[in-house]
């Protein structure tokens, strides 16, 4: 296959015919460059959206209570709905199949201090299941355990930024923090993709906080994730049923929107998914469009090149070139030019993306990048297109009678 003489012949034609080499090379390099840039920026937009909606688990539902706004079954409006421990039990038992993680929740704004450093933080009393609800990840130590709940332990897990605020660069695990006058031992530090606010939370055992802050078995809200096997519509149906059942239990008008509020991320997730889908389509469209433009460009140039060379090909044939050697020569030349300039375009595109990363991040486009296989795939598509585009006119040129080709001016 590798015939040095043949390649020397091709290198010579490429070198001696700078204009047409530059033309076809530029078309390919430019197409790949544009493809890489547009695809990369599209991916950057995608990354931005992913980050925006990464805060909580995509299948989470939060339930809060408030005051009724409508009278119902003889009860007046303006009545405060209060969740209690039996609501936890009720939800858990009734919807066991559809619930993945579940945690009742108490929330307080508390003064925290450690050795003179102090600050105010949201403290949440939760169950161990709460960690996956927030998509939070333990960085150091551990999260709250079932035993902590049972023992009403004075232990807390703190956000990464709480550790940074109070401990500087030191590790917080094992140290004691004073919250509203009571001392708690830090058992773990977590990070949360939801951003800075979410990393300034402190989690304590639900039972501990209920004992300290609530007179009896009251609680503030529920967080749960539904079974991830549910599709978006099933999830929305599930949260509607949950709302209905809870409203019945607390004697709330079914149309009362403020007494019991269910916040289902599935609805948001559905929108985001649709948005992402749309974005993917646009990116794909841009990519394919650029490629088609490149393919058409290289096809035109190949037709032009073969036309321009008709006479030369006729001379070569008169001197003993077989049709196959003519086709082979044109195709090898075309593949050589498309492959090498495609590679140049790819390199330029990747460097250009690197170069604009900082600028476009100011406009909210994060990490514009392209997967290697996508660009390499695009280059291969153009090489194949260039080959086919070269093959058709080459075959025609090879089949022209040499005498006709020689008379071509």
């Amino acid at each position, binding site marked *: 296959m590798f015939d040095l*003489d043949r390649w*020397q*012949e091709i290198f*010579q*034609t490429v070198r*001696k*015919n700078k204009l047409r080499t530059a033309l076809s090379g530029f078309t390919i390099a430019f197409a790949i460059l544009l493809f890489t840039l547009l695809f990369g920026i599209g991916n950057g937009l995608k990354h931005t959206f992913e980050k925006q909606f990464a805060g909580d688990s995509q299948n989470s539902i939060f339930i809060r209570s408030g005051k009724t706004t409508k009278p119902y079954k003889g009860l007046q409006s303006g009545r405060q709905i209060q969740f209690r421990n039996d609501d936890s039990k009720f939800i858990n038992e009734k919807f066991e199949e559809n619930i993945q993680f579940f945690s009742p929740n108490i929330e307080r704004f508390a003064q925290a201090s450690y050795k003179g450093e102090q600050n105010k933080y949201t403290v949440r009393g939760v169950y161990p299941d709460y960690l996956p609800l927030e998509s939070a990840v333990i960085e150091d130590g551990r999260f709250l355990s079932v035993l902590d709940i049972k023992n009403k332990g004075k232990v807390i897990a703190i956000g990464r930024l709480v550790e940074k605020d109070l401990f500087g660069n030191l590790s917080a695990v094992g140290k004691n923090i004073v919250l509203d006058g009571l001392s708690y031992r830090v058992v773990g530090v977590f990070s949360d993709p939801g951003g800075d606010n979410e990393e300034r939370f402190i989690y304590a055992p639900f039972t501990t906080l209920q004992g300290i802050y609530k007179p009896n078995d009251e609680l503030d809200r529920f967080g749960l994730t539904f079974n991830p096997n549910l599709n978006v519509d099933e999830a929305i149906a599930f949260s509607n049923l949950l709302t209905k059942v809870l409203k019945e239990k607390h004697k709330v008008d079914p149309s009362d929107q403020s007494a019991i509020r269910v916040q289902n991320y599935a609805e948001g997730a559905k929108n985001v998914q649709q948005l992402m889908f749309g974005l993917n389509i646009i990116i794909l469209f841009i990519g394919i469009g650029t490629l088609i433009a490149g393919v058409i460009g290289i096809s035109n140039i190949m037709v032009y090149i073969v036309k321009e060379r008709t*006479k*030369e090909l*006729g*001379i*070569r*044939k*008169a*001197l*003993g*070139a*077989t*049709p*196959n*050697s003519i086709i082979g020569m044109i195709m090898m030349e075309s593949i050589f030019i498309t492959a090498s300039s495609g590679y140049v375009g790819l390199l330029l595109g990747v460097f250009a993306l690197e170069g604009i990363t900082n600028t476009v991040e100011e406009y909210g486009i994060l990490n514009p990048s392209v997967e290697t296989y996508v660009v390499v795939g695009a280059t291969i598509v153009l090489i194949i297109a260039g080959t086919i585009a070269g093959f058709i006119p080459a075959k025609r040129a*090879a*089949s022209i*009678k*040499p*005498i006709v080709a*020689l008379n071509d001016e």
Partner: protein
Amino acid sequence: MIKIEKLHKSYPIGKGALHVLKGLDLHIKEGEFVSIMGSSGSGKSTLLNIVGLLDGHDTGNYYLNGQLIENLDEKKAAILRNKFLGFVFQSFNLINYKSALENVALPLYYQGIGRKERNKIALQYLDKVGLKDRAEHLPNELSGGEKQRVAIARALVTNPKVVLADEPTGALDSTTTHSVMELLKEINREGMTVFVITHEEDVASETDRIVRLKDGVIISDEKVNKKVII
């Protein structure tokens, strides 16, 4: 060397056909220096194209080097051209981005001969036509006469059986015409069969045998009486 029997050739024109060659018989022996004379439209170029395997014929027989030419596909024709025939064209037909040496070496490339070897051979032939010092020049840096000498060197480089020259002096002035014809004569003296097509009496008279063609038929075929130089 070249034997033609009842050769017919016509070209389709619109719905009808133009009958160009009407039953030619011609026999050229090895070592002959033949010219085909005729005005334009007489069919002389068509004859050369058929003899040169650049075009096919309709009916009749054509033997090249004793081999009957029939059912030639492009590939076989290309190989036969490369092996047996050398071409010299009116418009030189040199490849403009290749140096004189590379142009001369090109037929050897299609014989699969390595670069060094073919450049060596090509240089010998350039030397033979007196252009050794022009080897690295591109065609547009050469004069018309020099271009045709390069083309002749290229026609000779494969050591063919026949050199076919189509109006080899058509684009040259009288001085260079003379020197090109002298070169062809010299080649012929070394034993090469040379087949020239021309419409110029002066050129034809330099050859050994003149075949006159008119409207697709041979009207005369005679040996030239060589003037004896005293």
